[in-house]
């Protein structure tokens, strides 16, 4: 079952950071980002998640930490309102507590968000590698969010001590570190992973991300490799299914 409070963190802490790579690698996104220099701060409730998206010189930076003076501040009284904004349906009330006149910034962000969705849902071969890289990062960050905040998954993840790495045999990687008391996600390979889930290529990884693949069968055929702590793999797999439920 989707927990709206957790979902709001998935959006802010796992999905929005995709803007960084998107504006770095996608020409259209960087052109959009170049239209405005400034920052937008998202706040959910009085004690909910926060996140700042800063656009500067055609690049996006996404940080959980508050910038001292954001140009635009958006306050969502309830997490459902933020989630509806990302879902594109339902009541989407945001109280602009700052920068009400900076419409251009909001429009730019809105266009960037549309572009991100376009890339993430694209079937084009040109954007395939970027999409895979975006999904790898999103997946690891979302797992970390669930491990920290999802009431059920938090219990399961608390038994894990070690690092899970996702990688595409010929390309990029991301990893989740369960060993430091608080679960952290990072892009790139881990120095000493305990469980490695490796995909033969990006199309296969994206099909797995879209839940179109019999993973165990592909593993036995050698197209996916599962190595190391398979128990950790089982627990991570539960999170992957949950991410699907959250972001459907």
């Amino acid at each position: 079952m989707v927990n709206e409070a957790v979902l709001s963190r998935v959006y802010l802490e796992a999905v929005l950071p995709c803007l960084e790579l998107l504006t770095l690698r996608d020409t259209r996104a960087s052109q959009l980002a170049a239209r405005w220099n400034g920052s937008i701060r998202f706040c959910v409730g009085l004690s909910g998640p926060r996140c700042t998206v800063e656009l500067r010189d055609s690049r996006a930076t996404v940080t959980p930490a508050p910038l001292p003076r954001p140009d635009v501040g958006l306050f969502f009284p309830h997490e459902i309102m933020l989630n509806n904004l990302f879902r594109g349906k339902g009541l989407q009330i945001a109280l602009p507590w700052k920068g009400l006149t900076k419409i251009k910034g909001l429009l730019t962000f809105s266009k960037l968000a549309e572009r991100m969705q376009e890339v993430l849902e694209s079937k084009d071969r040109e954007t395939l590698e970027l999409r895979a890289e975006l999904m790898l990062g999103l997946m690891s960050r979302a797992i970390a969010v669930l491990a920290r905040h999802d009431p059920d998954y938090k219990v399961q993840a608390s038994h894990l001590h070690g690092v899970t790495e996702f990688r595409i045999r010929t390309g990029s990687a991301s990893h989740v570190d369960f060993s430091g008391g608080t679960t952290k996600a990072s892009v790139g390979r881990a120095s000493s992973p305990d469980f490695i889930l490796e995909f033969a290529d990006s199309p296969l990884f994206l099909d797995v991300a879209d839940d179109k693949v019999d993973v165990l069968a592909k593993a036995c055929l050698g197209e996916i490799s599962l190595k190391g702590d398979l128990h950790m793999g089982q627990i991570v797999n539960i999170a992957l299914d949950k991410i699907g439920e959250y972001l459907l």
Partner: protein
Amino acid sequence: MPYTFKKSLELFARAARVIPQGIPGHLTPVITVPGSYPYFAAKAKGCRFWDVDGNEFIDYMCGYGPMILGYAHEKVDEAYRKQARLGSCTSIATNLSVDLAEEITKTIDCADWVMFAKNGADATSMAVMLARGFTKRDKIVLAEEGYHGTQPWAGTNPVGITPTDRADILMVPWGDVNAFCEVMARHKGQVAGVMFTPYHHPVFADQRLPGPSYWPEMRRICDEHGIVLIIDDVRAGWRLDLRGSGHYFGIRPDLACYSKAMANGYAISALVGSERLRITASKAYFAGSFWCNAPEMAAAMACLEEMKAIDAPKVVKELGETLMKGLGERAAAHGLKVSITGPPAIPFMKFANETNFMRSQLFCGECASRGVFFHPHHNWFLSTAHTPQDIAQTLDAADEGFRVVKEKFGG
């Protein structure tokens, strides 16, 4: 000749098109590195099997337990075949259900009566229902990391289990009497039964034997609270003591579940119980189309007879001791630290200085390529068909496996 697995992989490609996972469940080869483990068996005899590529393996999984006398055992198989020629799945029960029940009540010391089924999960599910029926309570206590089948209440399936399915299941760490007492206190008057394995045999971890006071203490607490004490002896049953693993560890449970080694590979299971649960059992409706099949019962009769004749638990214990000792010595000779746990007949080895099983996976893959079939994270099984020569050959292969682990990991 180095082992190759071309036909296994070709067959698997076909399997993946028509069977989800290709090979589902515990037989999935997903634990292995493709190309270093067999996927499909062609034949088996004694303690060995041959895969579809013609590679030969000394098998330490024994079909995950059932093969206690070894594959294609002549006496058991002949008993099965003889009965099958007389007809299977008859519309009424056969004398064999009576003969076998009598034999089991004479053999297992906590068995005053027997109910038959097909798989271990049938027996554990019947036990849960009887505990609830007997006590008129709802809750069942299970051990964390314990395994009792894939049915929803047992909680091992990642798909399709609802919170309602598990609402009356309480989990405690195996072997922790204090935790059990706390649960009893929190759910006073609500707990129907507790189902534990006779010793703890989780996957991905060392096996743990009970201390001398554990089971007597559990018996005392269950009696004090009017709780049905159930031993799931599906995995360990018949290998430790023919009178039951409860007897082996000095405990008389109210209900005990058996399957696996009961008929040396033929599908049959049994729930046995004490006198005080007989009337509740008499009111229950447990049935399956194949639960009274006579050929499997004939196989179980022959298996029991043979296990008694050769004192199977003693044989597998001695073989297991040789294997455990040998593995420990060979690992130490390479400067490797291994942890070998569990009863000798059902041993498990892991590398003591790792939790991610990477050394174990490499070791098992190397052993497989030298004709020895081990599992990296599940306990192993000995059969009476293993011989000291098989163990010696195994240790030579293991020696090479340890050498490769040492080369790759350094320690």
